[in-house]
């Protein structure tokens, strides 16, 4: 979740009336704004990613002011006619651009910080890290209109990038400048790259990489030019609206920019139909139209109850459906002011039968003297194959593991139990451990090409642990489950020769048991003999008998 840091006095100064710290502290969380830290004048606030309009002091002030009923309803915006135009040519690498101007700003530290933070967070969230939106903020007095947006050969154009002293070509910026290295992947293998130039050919911006040093915003800046580029118009238009309406709250006068034949920004509120019956059903209260209207206005909506329409503020990127408006009505109502009400729903509670079966299995194992352990299902080939002296089999492999240690899903459980014995080497013996273990096997017949299976596995370790003792345990499990399985001699590379048996149900192998090979024990530095068994519970479940027989 994005976290913003803002100045508390600056925020309080913009709400429209005096607000005590304690009031702010209780109001913010009720508006999707979670206070992370409040240290003197600085507040750190976690904003939910669906509300980029709240990622700045101005947006929060607007929201809180409306919610408290101070400045309610749809905010009005004044956009003056364009004086600056921009010719946008076809730019394959980044086809869309919008722009706007805010004039007459009186920038202080808090304002500059809030706006820069907003721009970065929009690029990070709705921009998906500058892919879908990349915002440039410029001092427009430093350049001469008209501007143009076009594609150029990156070797042919050079300029001084922001924060640098020397001129570099665009190609050099991509190779050497930190921002170039960080974001060049966005271009893929495009040969011609986007650039914004003024009348004299001076570089304003190289989107989405870096602005020119020429148009750098300072405390003396009065008039700001914004360029926003991307691949589709919806996200960049909302980004522009969010930034311009925030600057307007700081006293900026919004001026449109003409791009080819269109002008930006478009700050007309979107009109949406509101089914008030739906609102009442979702909220569980039979609210009057006037109440709904008042709640909507406390979230900055414009409302026309006669024709049941709602005007959505032009900075609200998150309103896809009526339910999004209904949530806002609920927020205005106050989540803790709802009276919770349990519906009467006749429904029968049932455990998953296999889970219950597994619990019976656990009880049986406890009775047999085994301690239950729980292990991770993620493992690695070394642990589940090589150390156990078995060839690498088919497994589910992770493409982006966090470490080599956990790179695949286990297909059997005994290796996990062996690891448990290793970590308990210095504990008292005898040790008898079991696990009801989730494993995952590749299975091309399934829609997810794998199958979850559950194994019952156990290990026994003490000075006299041997095949006969383990065979007796297998007998007891067999009788307990009325399984009537048979045993057959078997060769398994993890077990000693002539000391391994398969557990058969009819012609199907459903498990195995025996004495673990001393070669494995010495690799694991285990000093006590170990016997082990593993049984496929899914197979056992197929033959399950009622437990009372």
């Amino acid at each position, binding site marked *: 979740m994005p976290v913003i840091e803002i100045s508390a006095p600056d925020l309080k100064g913009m709400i429209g009336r005096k607000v005590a710290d304690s009031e702010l502290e209780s109001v913010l969380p009720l508006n999707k704004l979670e206070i992370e830290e409040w240290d003197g004048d600085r507040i750190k606030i976690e904003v939910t990613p669906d509300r980029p309009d709240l990622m700045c002091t101005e947006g929060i002030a607007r929201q809180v002011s409306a919610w408290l009923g101070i400045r309610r309803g749809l905010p009005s915006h004044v956009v003056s006619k364009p004086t600056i135009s921009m010719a946008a040519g076809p730019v394959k690498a980044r086809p869309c651009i919008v722009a706007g101007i805010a004039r007459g700003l009186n920038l202080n530290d808090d304002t500059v910080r809030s706006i820069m933070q907003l721009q970065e967070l929009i690029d990070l969230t709705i921009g998906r890290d500058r892919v879908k939106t990349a915002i440039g903020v410029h001092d427009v007095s430093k350049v001469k209109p008209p501007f143009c947006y076009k594609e150029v050969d990156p070797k042919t154009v050079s300029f001084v990038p922001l924060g640098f002293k020397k001129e570099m070509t665009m190609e050099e910026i991509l190779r050497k400048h930190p921002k170039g290295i960080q974001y060049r992947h966005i271009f893929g293998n495009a040969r011609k790259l986007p650039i914004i130039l003024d009348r004299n050919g001076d570089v304003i911006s190289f989107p989405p990489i870096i602005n020119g040093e020429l148009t750098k915003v300072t405390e003396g800046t009065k008039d700001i030019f914004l360029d926003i580029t991307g691949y589709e118009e919806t996200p960049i238009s909302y980004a522009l609206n969010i930034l311009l309406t925030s600057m307007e709250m700081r006293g900026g006068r919004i001026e449109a920019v003409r791009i080819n034949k269109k002008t930006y920004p478009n700050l007309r509120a979107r009109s949406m139909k509101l089914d008030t019956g739906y609102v009442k059903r*979702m*909220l569980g209260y039979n609210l009057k139209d006037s109440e709904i209207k008042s709640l909507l206005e406390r979230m900055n909506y414009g409302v026309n109850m006669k024709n049941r329409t709602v005007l959505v503020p032009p900075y609200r990127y998150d309103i896809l459906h009526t339910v999004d408006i209904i949530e806002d009505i609920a927020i205005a109502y106050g989540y803790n002011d709802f009276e919770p009400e349990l519906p009467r729903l006749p429904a029968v509670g049932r455990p998953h039968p296999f889970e219950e079966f597994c619990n019976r299995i656990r009880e049986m194992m406890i009775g047999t003297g085994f301690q239950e*352990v729980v292990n*991770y299902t993620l493992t690695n080939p070394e642990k589940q194959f090589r150390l156990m002296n078995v060839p690498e089999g088919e497994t589910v492999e992770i493409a982006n593991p966090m470490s080599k240690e*956990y790179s695949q899903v286990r297909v059997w459980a005994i290796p996990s139990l062996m690891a448990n014995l290793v970590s308990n080497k210095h504990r008292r013996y005898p040790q008898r451990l079991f696990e009801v273990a989730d494993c995952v096997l590749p299975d091309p017949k399934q829609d*997810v090409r794998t199958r979850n299976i559950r194994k019952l596995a156990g290990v026994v370790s003490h000075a006299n642990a041997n095949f006969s003792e383990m065979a007796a345990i297998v007998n007891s499990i067999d009788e307990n489950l009325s399984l009537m399985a048979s045993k057959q001699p078997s060769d398994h590379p993890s077990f000693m020769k002539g000391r391994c048996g398969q557990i058969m149900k009819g012609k199907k192998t459903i498990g195995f048991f025996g004495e673990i090979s001393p070669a494995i024990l010495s690799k694991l530095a285990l000093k006590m003999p170990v016997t082990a068994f593993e049984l496929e519970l899914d197979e056992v479940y197929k033959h399950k008998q009622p437990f009372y027989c």
Partner: protein
Amino acid sequence: MSGTLSADLKPLLTTKTNKDIDNMEDVVKKLSPHEKKVLLALKKLQEAATGEIAKETGLSEDTVHKAGQWASMKGLVEHREEVETKAELTEEGKRYSEEGVPEKKLLEIVSKKTMSIQELNRSVDNFSIALAWAKKKGWVQMAGGKVSITKTGREVLSKSTPVEEGLRGNFHENNLDELRARKLVTVREKKTKMLSLTEKGRQILPHLKDMKAIKEEVGQLTPSHIKTGKWKDEVFREYDVNTPVPTLYTSTIHPYVQFINETRRKMIALGFHEMKGPFTETEFWNMDALFMPQDHPARGIHDVFRLKKPSKGEVKDKMALERVGKTHKNGWITGSTGWGHWNQEQTLNLVLRSHTTCVSARTLASRPEIPSKFFTIDRVFRPDVLDATHSFEFHQMEGIILGENLNIRNLLGYLELFGREVAGAEDIRFRPGYFPFTEPSVEMDAKIGGKWVEIGGSGIFRPELTKPLGIDASVLAWGLGFGRLAMIKLGISDMRDLFNHDVEWLRKRRLVV
């Protein structure tokens, strides 16, 4: 029932007080024949080594040692250790004892005449050792490559030095260190355990019979005693109830599994039906069916494990596939704008499920009855490092409630119920939140043990999720941070301990009730 039982038993069980145990006769009763023999031997020998007592009693030294320990735990015997050092000349030491120490030989030569180092080197064996020690002891001095005797040197010339005494077998404090340092002797320590009677031990002597009259007591009652009736003639040893014995540990269901099962039982009691789903999922069920846009940051490689092998699955429910795709692109008939894009190839990518919400989505697509309620508690996977607060594999608890016209008040009603019944919260509060698949979304904080903790998220599933899966009813959905709750309930501060497999920890774990 239990009340009457204990009342009946009471007259049969007499409790012995400390006063009785202090009674000398009683102490004697508790003594094994071996202890008695050791006590009687000490009466005669006063203080004695275990070996001597063994000779006196005819017991093995090991038996005497054990009996002595038991008697000392009863406060009848005390023991101390005697350490005897034994020094022995090494090969080098033996040679010096025959030939004399080199530094003394050097001293004898220079006492007659100051000589140069070269000359001395030729005429004295082990010259460097001799010179080093003679210099260290201040017997000689060197000037201009010549070695001459000092005053101290002359004084010791005719005397026996401590080292020479040691070499003759006379070891004492003044020479042992040097002899050891020069590796002329080896020193071994022999420990002897000396036993003697305590005051209490002497007090009980009059109550003991003499050695010959002590009858062997029987420890183990055997089947043959019972069969032959011989038990009537035997004296059985009485046990001290506080004799230390090893603890016999029971095996247990793992505490985390106990907690999972306890929670499952509560959910079932609240009328929920348990659902299950596979660990690996297509992006379709894990994300697309939940209306998470295909370019959502939470679908990136830092938030979801992608599979290398196998890497692509299929979606068998073709109708759901088509409707979900349309809903993403333009909202389909759900009344939404949609996300404006959707790619069928991406939806087939396989991942390890990153939440249990995919299980809810599959359940919704399976045409469930309405009303109905479902839950699951199971493992999910996320690319995270393993530390005290993060894990790549952890449990989530998730539930859905399907019904006609359910509303936010019903959602809060259920949350309150879970908070109190399942999490054991003293108080609950709600906040708006954000999840891509619910609207409205609610975050719940619970007061547990006087502290507010975030325990879960919830909401009403968006129509963009329910309609494409064929559900016309409302669906309330909620999830609890199950691991966090388990940690609070089990008193664990490190997330890794939920999977703790230290048998000693498990053996000593309190039962979860």
